[in-house]
């Protein structure tokens, strides 16, 4: 079908099944694309401004509230940045428990996104609610899995949304021996449901769209799939330390909008599960590698829709990685003398200095940077948070520019759905990104 004289006017206000508020605007005149953009329309919350004058010991509590879905991820980046500023090195036990928390964060977020937010598109329904009737067993399995991970978080950090025990300097409460056993039992109890939902994942079909893209994620020299520690690397062979995170983000203002975008070697970058898979697939847990192989999913994959599949592979990785950590902790036991209470450090139990600290952590949606500058009393003078979704918005628009011409022969409804699906594949988290994005309303 010829598209030379095709006119199209698509405006999706408030893309659903994503976290936060974003709009898609696409205009085509006589087969020519005039505009195809993704706008973020979230109320600015000014977190970086609000952090000024607060104690560095409050940064985790406050920045956790940037986002409910990503609160453990923000907390982990925040404590890493705070400890870097203070010159505190966390103990091996502290780091091990943080890695466990990160596994839970990935499991929870990926299960939510793959099965409740993204799968309805592939199954041709507007949300998971119709699936309660058509795929009742699967919905129940997914809700049970989410609940199980959530119960593990409750044990480890008090609650999944806005964790309580994981703070700069260590942990305010350490899981008892019994609680380690409980977490192992919960995870082992997930095996049957997990097996079932993974079978469903293997049947999901995604559009066959490819665009050469620069993928950015943590990279490291050891054998562990890097989520908490390492350097910042890209599929273009670049590598910088966390302290040099600005070199990997290069924020710039696009004349089309007042949104700040990021790029590195080329015009835009992709961060998230697909980026991690493309850079570190050889370090995945053997079970996750086996699943990727069974799905014929190989790096470097340049189809952004496959980010959802990369998340499925990471579900398997994090599940086994978490179990490995717990079994190791069961064997070695915990040193309970390491539990701390800090408040705003009114007892002076942590030595404080003026500093400039960076934390860069892989969170479900990609690499997240927190950077705090503090004075000698530990008060925050300046804060900067660079969010995965913010790094991806520019890439989404570059994908739009290639994808829309390829699907222009389809109906308006199909085109609109596919553009929405592309946005959802990135699993955007707009609450997170709203500290500096375009908030102009499209009329």
């Amino acid at each position, binding site marked *: 079908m010829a598209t030379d004289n095709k006119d199209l006017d698509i405006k999706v206000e408030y893309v659903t*099944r994503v*976290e936060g508020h974003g709009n898609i605007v696409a205009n085509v005149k006589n087969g020519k694309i005039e505009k195809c953009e993704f706008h973020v329309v979230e109320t*600015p919350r000014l977190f970086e401004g609000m952090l000024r004058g607060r104690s560095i010991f409050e940064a985790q509590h406050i920045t956790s509230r940037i986002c*409910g*879905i990503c609160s453990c991820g923000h907390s982990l980046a925040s404590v890493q940045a705070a400890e870097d500023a203070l010159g505190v090195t966390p103990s091996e036990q502290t780091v091990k428990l943080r890695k466990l928390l990160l596994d839970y964060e990935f499991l929870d977020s990926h299960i939510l996104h793959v099965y409740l937010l993204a799968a309805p598109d592939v*199954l041709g329904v507007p949300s998971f609610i119709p699936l309660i009737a058509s795929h009742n067993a699967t919905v129940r399995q997914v809700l049970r899995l989410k609940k199980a991970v959530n119960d593990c978080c409750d044990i480890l950090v008090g609650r999944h949304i806005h964790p309580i025990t994981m703070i700069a300097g260590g942990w305010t409460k350490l899981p008892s021996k019994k609680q380690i056993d409980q977490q192992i039992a919960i995870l082992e109890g997930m095996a049957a449901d997990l097996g079932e939902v993974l079978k469903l994942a293997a049947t999901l079909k995604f559009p066959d769209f490819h665009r050469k893209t620069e993928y950015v994620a943590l990279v490291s020299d050891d054998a562990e799939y890097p989520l908490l520690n390492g350097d910042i690397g890209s599929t273009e062979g670049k590598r910088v330390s966390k302290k040099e995170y600005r070199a990997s983000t290069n924020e710039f203002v696009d004349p089309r909008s007042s949104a700040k975008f990021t790029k590195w070697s080329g015009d835009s970058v992709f961060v998230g599960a697909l980026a991690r898979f493309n850079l570190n697939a050889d370090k995945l847990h053997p079970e996750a590698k086996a699943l990727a192989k069974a799905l014929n999913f190989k790096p470097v994959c340049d189809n952004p829709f496959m980010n959802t599949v990369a998340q499925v592979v990471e579900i398997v990785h994090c599940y086994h990685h978490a179990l490995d950590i717990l079994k190791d902790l069961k064997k070695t036991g915990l040193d309970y003398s390491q539990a701390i209470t800090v408040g705003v450090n009114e007892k002076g139990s942590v030595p404080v200095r003026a500093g400039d600290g960076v934390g860069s952590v892989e969170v479900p949606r990609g690499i997240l940077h927190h950077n705090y500058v503090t004075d000698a009393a530990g008060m925050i003078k300046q804060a900067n948070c660079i969010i995965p979704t913010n790094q991806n918005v520019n890439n989404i628009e570059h994908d739009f520019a290639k994808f829309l011409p390829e699907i222009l022969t389809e109906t308006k409804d199909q085109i609109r759905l596919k553009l929405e699906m592309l946005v959802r594949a990135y699993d955007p988290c707009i609450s997170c990104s709203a500290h500096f994005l375009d908030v102009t309303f499209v009329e």
Partner: protein
Amino acid sequence: MTTPNKDTKAPAPAAAAKPKVAFFDFACCEGCQLQITNFGELLLDVLGAVDVVEFREAISEKWDGDYDVVFIEGSIGDHHAEERLKKIRARAKVLIAYGSCATTGGVNGMKNSFELDEIRQSVYGKDYKLFDSTPTKRVDQVVKVDYYINGCPVYIPELVEVLKHALRGLPYTVPDNPVCAECKLNENVCMYERGLACLGPWTKAGCNSWCVNNGNICYGCRGEVSNPAKNANDVISKYNLKPELIKAKFDMYNKCKEGAK
């Protein structure tokens, strides 16, 4: 995969009588909405009792009629939000302020600790006027609120309790005793005895002293009890506290009540 579509249509006729419930989010982290997806299978029971007609974070369905119950999450921080909230109120029989951002302004209230233009400029630079921003308001500083569910995030047992009251049209009273009352029952060692200033003595109970049970202090997310001064003198003098330390801690969640700077 082929999917049978026969069951994916709108609710069966019997479901038409179920109360229409909607969720709307304003400036917030959306964590309180997410607490609902953390119900697990209980979610299916709740969905059996109500008809969720709008919930943008989780579903694509939209509704243009009136609502029996709306949950408002988030605080109000720009002109568009204020107008949108008033329109929702006009269509809602019952309105629930849901989570700290809605009930106290939450952490968004810290914006009001700064001159508005100064903090906008500090984040957005010279183009700050492109981004509309007004001093943070709680929901009840804009429209009438029928029920309050406090907390950052909300505590699920309290959420279920308030929802049950709201669906039956019964009043629900938020506890007006301090978090300490629950904390004592949980046999926690008092944070003051551990040398840390905790906001439990002045913060509304109802969370089962969630944070202190987990070795942290109370940050005051549920808002102040109606007479905070009653407990203040004892604690402040006994532990020789600097009032400004307590004030700074309170500013994290309780800045909205002072109004705009």
